């Protein structure tokens, strides 16, 4: 019988990845995600996997490129400045349509920034980050259990759509401890075979993993094909949570750690008689624009309040989804500072 276990976010995520089929991990130390490579280095050999501490983030993501080319379930993790270094490889992997998982335990930036909690990598995660026209499937867990569940599924989604599944976590998710229920090990023998993998040619077919295409029509076709996949993601994989939104006059929009603070604020404000709700995207690419669009048509709704640990990044997607139908306001903290539920209550009440 499975039992809940108190685990640190980073370690729970690492274990969930292994149970979800991850057997190859390549990474480089950076705070606040170090427990992931540390855990992997000890745990992967126990399940017949392989851990390499790479010479750089650049190498780590390219090792993922090589391992994913061979059809393995491969993963890397890092935090903001390290993720910047991985962007080259992420662009190549997305274009070669290699499935893999990338985890970003976001810290404060830009530059070296700080090791504390922030959400300044939203644009990088959802709008490209690396060069060229590509996207990833981006999850934003708000609890360690949710992170475990999303990471556990991440490889299935990556394999199914041949995309990068990206976990946009944050320092708090990585460092905090919470009780979690770990899922069972996936049976890797039952996974569909990856016929395209470069594991050695067959009698009739050569496999090539490549992102170079000098014929403009062919390259355009490749990109259109990628965007067809993104349309499928939009249709099938968009996830979000609406909390007390039906009769809300004000809807807070928040993801990750901030959504928990927002939920507390909503509960306290409701207790005071105010009609406030929370909209929480779980995928930020694809962004749940339809759901927000529908909420923006509620007659009772007066405005959205987007709250982030940045100067305002997700707010752009919310505004696009609202499309001018309701005002969209913003409250953010930055630099490793985190708002309190009282801060958000004051903003909602117009005191701040």
């Amino acid at each position, binding site marked *: 019988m499975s039992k809940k276990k108190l685990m640190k976010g980073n370690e729970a995520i690492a274990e969930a990845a292994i149970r979800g089929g991850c057997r190859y991990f390549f990474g480089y130390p950076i705070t606040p995600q170090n427990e992931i490579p540390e855990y992997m280095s000890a745990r992967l050999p126990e399940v017949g996997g392989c851990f390499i501490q790479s010479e750089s983030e*650049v*190498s780590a993501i390219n*090792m993922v490129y090589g391992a994913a080319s061979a059809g393995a379930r*491969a993963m890397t993790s890092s935090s903001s400045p390290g993720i910047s270094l991985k962007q080259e490889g992420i662009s190549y992997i997305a274009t070669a349509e290699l499935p893999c998982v990338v985890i970003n335990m976001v810290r404060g930036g830009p530059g070296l920034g700080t090791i504390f909690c922030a959400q300044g990598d939203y644009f990088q995660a959802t709008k490209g980050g690396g060069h060229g026209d590509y996207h990833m499937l981006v999850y934003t867990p708000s609890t360690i259990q949710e992170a475990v569940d999303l990471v556990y599924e991440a490889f299935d989604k990556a394999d199914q759509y041949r995309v990068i599944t990206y976990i946009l976590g944050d320092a708090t998710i990585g460092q905090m401890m919470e009780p979690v229920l770990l899922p069972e090990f996936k049976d890797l023998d039952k996974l569909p075979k990856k016929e395209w993998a470069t*594991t050695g040619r067959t009698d009739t077919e050569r496999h*090539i993993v490549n992102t170079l295409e000098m014929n403009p029509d062919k390259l355009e076709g490749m990109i259109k094909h990628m965007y067809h996949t993104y349309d499928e993601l939009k249709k099938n994989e968009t996830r979000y949570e609406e909390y007390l939104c039906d009769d809300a006059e004000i809807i807070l929009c928040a993801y990750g750690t901030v959504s928990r603070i927002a939920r507390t604020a909503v509960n306290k404000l409701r207790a005071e008689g105010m009609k406030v709700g929370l909209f929480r995207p779980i995928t930020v690419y694809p962004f749940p624009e339809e759901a927000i669009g529908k909420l923006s048509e509620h007659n009772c709704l007066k405005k959205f309040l987007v709250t982030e640990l940045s100067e305002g990044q997700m707010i752009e997607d919310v505004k696009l989804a609202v499309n001018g139908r309701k005002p969209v306001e913003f409250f953010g903290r930055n630099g490793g500072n985190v708002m309190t539920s009282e801060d958000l209550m004051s903003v909602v009440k117009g005191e701040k």
Partner: protein
Amino acid sequence: MEKVVFQKSNMLTDAPLHFCPGCSHGIANRLIAECMEELNIDKKNIVGIAPVGCAVFNYNYFDVDMIEAAHGRAPAVATGLKRVLGNDKFVFVYQGDGDLASIGAAEIIHAAARCENISVVFINNGIYGMTGGQMAPTSLLGQKSTTSQKGRDIGRNGYPVKMSEMLAQLDGATYIERVSTHDAANVRKAKQAIKTAFKCQLENKGFSMIEVLSACPTNWGLTPVKAMEHIKNDVIPYYPLGVFADRRNEK
């Protein structure tokens, strides 16, 4: 009756090579193919990695599974690949000098340090060919290029990098040899060296690299014949041929 005295290796496809006349890439491709064939490596057990640069289209030429890597990253890609495939499969890496000695310096050093069981063929022609003749990390002192138009100058550009000598210092580097392609005798020696490197991997002895001194007549501004003479007279004196590391007995 007519007798076949020479034919293309069955490890190569029928795709026409895009290399310039007099370029050594074609020779290197043929040698790699012949070595794999003569060592009886099953085509189904081979995966090659192409670099960025003049050899970027190599995935069209070798009749095996191929991965095209980002500039300089081929050894990291090969690492991930080989760790998954294991020693039953053969992984060769093909890189030029800008790729290996400059933008990918970290990747090659650490692949060697880890003693990854892969074989690297390193084409050193002292110039960036594909991008139009810029100075390479291996360009000779005084060598003219589009970014060293009056010749490579120590004060401005520093010294050429001797990768074989450098990598040979690493305990993880099992076999490192520098060869040349400037005449038939040396091409034959180059083939033996590549074969030794490939055997090294087949015997699970770890990392090997063969540096192949190569001609780039187009970007050197020389005829193919003069380019070969240039290797003999000017390049080899700076980049001496020979075995720089042989730790096969230690592995």
